[in-house]
């Protein structure tokens, strides 16, 4: 029972900050500011002879409850919630399109490679290999996306330009790949290549959209610091 009587100030402060940020109103800078406040006040009170735990409890009480603080921050930044929601929506939607672009790039490069080195296997690949590749890449992309989302929120993303720029690059890469594939595979349009896959693609898109929606709902409390 020795350990339970030890009071861990760092942990207590982190928990308290999480409680303050339950509504997602605190930016990383706000968090640092409140953390600094709690540490300083706790140390001040400890110098007056209080134990760490007593000092922390008083500092916490003086700073105010999570509900009060949250609503005060919300009043100071009335548009934050909406801006955050749209920012996340944009990141998710462009992220999804980037994922689909990546999928096409992977699939087309694989087709070109097969055509280059194993031309007799091309029809078989287009029928089976390509589909499995696409499914595999979308699954990988979904897993990566769900891992990345918390990092995106924690990072100090000041605006959405990096997202839009990455998206643009992926769009250019996809277009280039379509051109290469069209020439290399001797087909006149990309749609000829993917005609068998169109239902599949719409299915994937629907799954992707559901994923985006699910993520938005699940992570509605994450804050994104857009200055």
């Amino acid at each position: 029972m020795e350990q339970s009587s030890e009071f861990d100030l760092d942990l207590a402060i982190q928990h308290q900050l999480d409680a303050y940020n339950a509504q997602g109103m605190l930016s990383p800078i706000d968090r640092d500011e409140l953390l600094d406040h709690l540490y300083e006040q706790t140390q001040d009170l400890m110098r007056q002879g209080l134990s760490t735990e007593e000092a922390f409890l008083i500092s916490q009480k003086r700073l105010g409850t999570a509900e009060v603080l949250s609503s005060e921050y919300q009043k100071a930044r009335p548009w934050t919630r909406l801006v955050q929601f749209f920012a996340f929506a944009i990141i998710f939607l462009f992220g999804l399109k980037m994922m689909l672009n990546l999928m096409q790039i992977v699939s087309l490069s694989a087709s070109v490679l097969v055509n280059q080195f194993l031309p007799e296997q091309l029809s078989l690949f287009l029928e089976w290999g390509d589909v499995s590749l696409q499914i595999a890449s979308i699954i990988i992309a979904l897993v990566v996306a769900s891992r990345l989302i918390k990092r995106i929120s924690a990072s100090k993303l000041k605006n959405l330009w990096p997202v839009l720029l990455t998206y643009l690059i992926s769009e250019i890469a996809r277009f280039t790949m379509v051109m290469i594939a069209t020439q290399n595979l001797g087909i006149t349009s990309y749609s000829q290549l993917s005609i068998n896959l169109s239902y599949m693609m719409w299915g994937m898109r629907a799954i992707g959209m559901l994923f985006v929606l699910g993520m938005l709902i699940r992570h509605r409390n994450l804050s994104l610091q857009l200055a």
Partner: protein
Amino acid sequence: MYTMVSKDLIAASTIPIVLSLLKEGDNYGYQLIKEVQKISDGALQWKEGSLYPVLIKLEKNGLIKSYIKKEEGRNRKYYSLNERGKSALVKLQEEWKLVNLTLNQLWNNQASLT
């Protein structure tokens, strides 16, 4: 026991007090709270958490600026008064002086009647 200032008055006086303190020099939240307590001898008990959103509002309105300084291994957010803040403070000082003057005259007159 000293008299505590009511919530409404605290809310009304927070901005002029913050601006006046920042006029003395750049400062951070916790220190501002401590100084107010010291100067008012404990009569002005701010709801500490509410000060930070007030600082956000003041910064948004362009009266103060903030910057981060690394101190004691932590990121400390300092605030400084800018030109707009200084002129806003001058205006606030005039308003408060008027209120002060009016109340003083009323109470002094009353005192002389009794």
